């Protein structure tokens, strides 16, 4: 007899493929909360651009929703990019510095 995968079975399999072992370990709570926090933060950051122009804020908010859904889970990327590797931090500092100079010179 061939088993029939209903949609429910497929969804259940897909969701449980994320979880190994108990879904409520000490680590897991931290990662789940961190994921939700970074998601909300991305949305807040996008909506921030309303102070420059409201349509820009709306477009960025929609883009942020799409982006967070596409790139989920965010926390893994965030953890990688927050590595304490010297070269990586140096790289980020140079990028930051360039952005600051560009934004302030453009604004002035």
């Amino acid at each position, binding site marked *: 007899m061939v088993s029939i995968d209903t949609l429910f079975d497929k969804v259940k399999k897909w969701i449980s493929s994320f979880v190994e072992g108990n879904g409520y370990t000490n680590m897991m709570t931290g990662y789940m*909360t961190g994921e939700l926090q970074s998601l909300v933060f991305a949305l807040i950051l996008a909506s921030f651009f309303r102070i420059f122009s409201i349509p820009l804020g709306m477009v960025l908010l929609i883009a942020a929703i799409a982006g967070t859904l596409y790139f989920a889970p965010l926390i893994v990327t965030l953890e990688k990019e927050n590595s304490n590797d010297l070269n990586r931090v140096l790289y980020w500092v140079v990028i930051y510095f360039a952005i*600051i100079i560009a934004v302030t010179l453009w604004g002035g």
Partner: protein
Amino acid sequence: MSAYPSNLWSIPLLVVIPIIVAVVVNFIYNRSRLIKIISIVSAVCLALIASLSSYGYHWFTGQPALRPETLTFTFDPGFPAWRLALEFYFGPLQQVMIFVMSLILIFVVAVASSGLTKRQGPYMSMIFLLFASAAIIIMVNDLYHLWIAVEIGSLVVAGVVVGSGTSVSHKAALKYTFFSALSGAGLAIALALILGLTGYSNISDAIRYLQSVNLGEMSIILYVAFAFFVLSWIYAGGLAPIHPLKSEVYGASFPHGTAMLQTQSKLMLVAIGIVMLQIFGMLPFVREVMLAISIITMMLGVVMALIQTDFRWILAYLIVSHSGLVTVGISLGTTEGLVGGIFQAVNDVIYMTVLLLCCEALYYFGGKTSTRNSLGLAKRAPWLGMAVILGTMAASGIPPFNGFQSELILIQASLKAGLPEVAAVILMVSVTTFIALFRAVYRLFLKPPETSEPVAEVKVPRSLYIGLWVFVALTLIIGVYPNIVVSFITPVAQAVSIPWYL
């Protein structure tokens, strides 16, 4: 203003005493009892000087004065606009910041001298030099001393981190020193650009010149100077792109060393932030840039704290995240924002010291700080368990503790500036702080231990417990009577504030 105002007696003492103590304890490096007495006595002296001193200036050299009507320089010493180039200023803000810092210094040296067995002299001298550099940055009113003190401070931070002697701390110190090189060069360039633009190294003079003169095309130079200044600001406070290294520095040193490091770093953030606000605050996009850096730091710090599995690293990331809270207030630049930001800095160093002293106590109970262990310490040391829970509540802004008062002012300030998003982020940070801390507190203190082997009696030094309860009491007192601190901050905040223009 007279041409030669008299100097204030307390300013040189606040700088020279820690330097002399640093030299002396370095000489008598192996006599631990003598080191302990000298360090504690001098730390108490510093606290007394800071609390008893009147307000005033100390100046080192003069410079040609600017005639406002013709914008020409004159060497005439009788000219009434004679300003002093290299000067320190001791006012109410400086008083409260240096007093809190010296209070923390007392307990840090007491705990360090009872915990350390070897290398005590050099380590203690690093702690005192850290105090000296932070005191200079807090009091300074000229760019030259500011730059030197930032450089000295960053080298001393490396020294304190190396003092804990593990390979992790050597790596953290090396990485941090690379950035000190970068940001020190940046600050020197910023100083040179401001000097070239205004002709002044004195901060008040430079600000007055920039306000009275239309720079026109030359304002581009000011923007470049701002960018370099921001580089050293984010470095000093461990703001966004440098936060992995700064939290590594906090996590790799002894917890009592971290208490001193975070105090220095947060008070430096306030002092440099106020200077930046005054010099560049009127330029468009400057405060937005500062605000963006602060918000990103807050969130990244707190999210990274959530996923750590060691109490030390959780505290390290939370310290970085709360630095963002301090700078949000300063970036807003309004009176409420400045009061909130500076008040938050003072509160932050107090409650983080409580938590760091609790973390130090864990070393006496076997040295396990990973949240993978469940130790059940609340049963073995009920007072320690209570202190850590009170510290957690203060850090997450629960009334009636001090964290609540400053976060309330910050939230009100951001709402008043028309930025409800910032208020939302501040709320998120304070709630997430509670989650991140309580995960560790539950595992280490409240959850019953997995093994039931008999435990030996542990002797925690008395100075640690005294310090713990002094700072817990301070969080409560400031939480109930915030005006004790706010009354010192408000006049300064009113003097330097700029209305938010959105």
